[in-house]
């Protein structure tokens, strides 16, 4: 077996991922190869250092509120969806009624009718756009607040 393969076995050995057969091959090779013995020892030291690496633990309070935060955000999302759906229904219904009134009123000048229709159309588009942003881009917005 070549040195490259043995070095991979050394890596796996320190991870306790070597089977008995490979362990025997490794042991036999190490007896007669000083280069791989050196690699074995160095890898042992490396593993010792890596074994000491650990993340700093956050405050215990973080775990206590962790689920509550997830729960609240799940609830809030449903709230946003309901609000958006309700808002859109009201908006379209109101818009329809207003339009109906304007169109049916023969005393209203045509230019005024067009102007009002344009304003209502613009408002409707903007509101729908904003609602959609709140629902679908909410997460992205939240990250912007986090960045400092």
């Amino acid at each position, binding site marked *: 077996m070549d040195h490259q393969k043995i070095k*991979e076995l050394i890596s796996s050995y320190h991870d306790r*991922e070597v089977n008995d057969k490979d362990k025997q091959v490794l042991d036999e090779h190490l007896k007669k190869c000083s280069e791989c013995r050196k690699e074995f020892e*160095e890898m042992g030291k490396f593993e010792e250092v890596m074994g*000491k690496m650990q993340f*700093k633990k956050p405050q215990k309070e973080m775990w206590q509120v962790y689920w509550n935060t997830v729960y609240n955000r*799940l609830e809030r999302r449903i709230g946003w969806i309901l609000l958006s759906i309700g808002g859109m229904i009201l908006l379209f219904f109101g818009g329809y009624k207003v339009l109906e009134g304007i169109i049916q009123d023969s005393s209203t000048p045509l230019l005024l009718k067009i102007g009002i229709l344009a304003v209502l159309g613009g408002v409707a588009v903007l509101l729908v756009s904003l609602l959609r942003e709140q629902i679908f881009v909410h997460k992205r917005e939240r*990250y912007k607040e986090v960045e400092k």
Partner: protein
Amino acid sequence: MNKTGSKDVYKTRQNEMAEEAALQKDRIFHGKKVHIRVNEEVSEKELLEVVQKGDKEAYGVIVKRYMHSAYYVALGFVHNQQDALDVSQDAFIKAFRKIKMFDTSMPFFPWFYRLLRNLCIDYLKRKNRTRAIPLQDIQVIAVEKEDRELKETLWKGIEKLPFEQREVVILRYFQQLSYAEIAEFIGKPIGTVMSSLFYAKKKLKEIIGKYLGFE
């Protein structure tokens, strides 16, 4: 870090799980009785089936079970505590939304991990965060000044690894997963995991070699 004490990420927080479970009594989720008591672990499959019906309380048990692992995985990728908290919580929210697509005969965490990993990648891309992890977020059990320098050098080395290698390093050393578990998590063969880890170690060993007296 005791590597032998925890080979399975699903079991890494069992003590905390027992404490959390101790705070709760038997509950009825959608007409199905679910026991949540000390020394009586709730079947994950049973819980997830209830979650799939939309039960948030049952999902709370799942979140509490895996929040530690999720947070530390995210911390390994996104560099600081606040971001790790946010991204891991985002992943739980996303998982809840997609839970009906989940096969309850499979373990939850590998499936969840893939959602979390993708969110971490998206997050890094979006924010273009290439800065190194703040060292205050990493702790090495060391008292010597020299060891502190070693820690800094080692972490910078981990940060510079290609994403695939960094991922296996994080899962191996910070989640204590076996090769088979890592392979399941990242959806690649064990041989690929072994190879990625070998090359990652080789690079890191070269980087910190001078501190350990390697020639």
